[in-house]
């Protein structure tokens, strides 16, 4: 039975899974969850994803949620097809985990916060907290200075091969760029890396929505 991806066609975390599926050439069926109608908070949904968040997958009865966990699961299960996204050598694995953790602690809080303030809050009838947006931008800027140092020594975040850690940056990075905040272009190594990962066929295929 084909893998089922339950999510929202343009949701960042749903796209985070979709880009990995594409990169690994894994066919999937997309089942839309109507967030605007609150489908993700209904009991039929929270029975599978108790936090009431998208996405989750049903892989022949195995239910999994948290987009990065799903990405890791797909990359490991389909290690022998598509692009290798998880290293196998212990040292390389350690550097991959360092990079994956860097994304969740030194990138995601700031880009997801900016995505909320500058785009998503408006969709839910709120408005931009300008002070918070400014603070987040400043923090993101400082973090990307460190990224520029790292990416000046190696091609990708975990070393010289692309991994899941790089791809995980795509969805929120794209939203922040989309609202006109460009902290990438002014940093030559970050700019090079972003251009590389964002021009991959897998991202091109899903970035506009599944």
């Amino acid at each position: 039975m084909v893998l089922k991806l339950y999510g929202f066609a343009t949701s960042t975390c749903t796209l985070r899974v979709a880009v990995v599926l594409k990169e690994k050439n894994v066919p999937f069926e997309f089942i839309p969850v109507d967030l605007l109608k609150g489908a993700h908070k209904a009991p039929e949904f929270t029975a599978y994803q108790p936090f009431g968040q998208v996405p989750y997958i049903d892989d022949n009865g195995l239910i999994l949620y948290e987009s990065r966990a799903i990405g890791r699961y797909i990359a490991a299960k389909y290690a022998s097809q598509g692009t290798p996204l998880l290293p196998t050598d212990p040292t390389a694995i350690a550097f991959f985990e360092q990079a994956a953790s860097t994304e969740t602690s030194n990138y995601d809080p700031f880009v997801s916060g900016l995505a909320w303030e500058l785009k998503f809050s408006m969709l839910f009838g709120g408005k931009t907290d300008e002070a918070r947006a400014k603070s987040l931008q400043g923090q993101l800027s400082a973090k990307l200075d460190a990224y520029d140092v790292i990416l000046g020594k190696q091609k990708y975040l975990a070393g010289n091969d692309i991994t899941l850690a790089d791809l995980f940056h795509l969805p929120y990075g794209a939203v922040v760029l989309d609202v006109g905040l460009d902290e990438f272009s002014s940093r030559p190594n970050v700019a090079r890396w972003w251009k590389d990962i964002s021009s991959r066929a897998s991202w091109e295929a899903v970035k506009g929505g599944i």
Partner: protein
Amino acid sequence: MVLKIHGHAIAPLVRLVAEVCREKEVPYELVNVEVYKGEHKTPAFKEFQPFGQVPYIDDDGFVLYESRAICRYIAKKYASQGTPDLVPRDPKAEAIFEQAVSIETSNFYPFALGITTEKIVKKHRGLEPNEARLSDLVNNLKAKLDVYEVILGKQAYLAGGSITLADLFHLPYGTIVFEELGYDMLEDRPNVARWWKEITARPSWLAVKAKA
């Protein structure tokens, strides 16, 4: 050469690494970084940790940062000693483990860290907490713990029947929020309370609390 943890004994994520070292019976040396004097922001420090954060480890010349990555490294390198299966190897168990680890980073840590920032970090800097933000963070964390209550009603630990890193990752900031700051979020959540009592009673964590 003994594993070196570079950081400050009071830093929550330094304590996390110390905790996992103890679980895995790995001796370590804590190399003090003068965070109150800004040593972690100096160019010399950033040679090893480009974000200017503690901890990082030096394992006989192998340098690694990001506490959760360090913990994974230690758990895997010393898989055959100390507490077993802190990172499961069976593919299905590993998938559920990764889900649990991600739950901690997205559905617990941002709120616990935020509360700690408002109540403790800001105080150190002579700033007042943003009460509206603090209230939001507390309410959000409680809502998340309502879900933990459901999950932990079906299984003993966050990734299944045995303890894993996913549980241990909650120790440092959970201790700050529930114990040091005294937020009572456990009384109405008996499954969470049971789980919290279990993981905080581990001898390795008690040892770290006494002296990292």
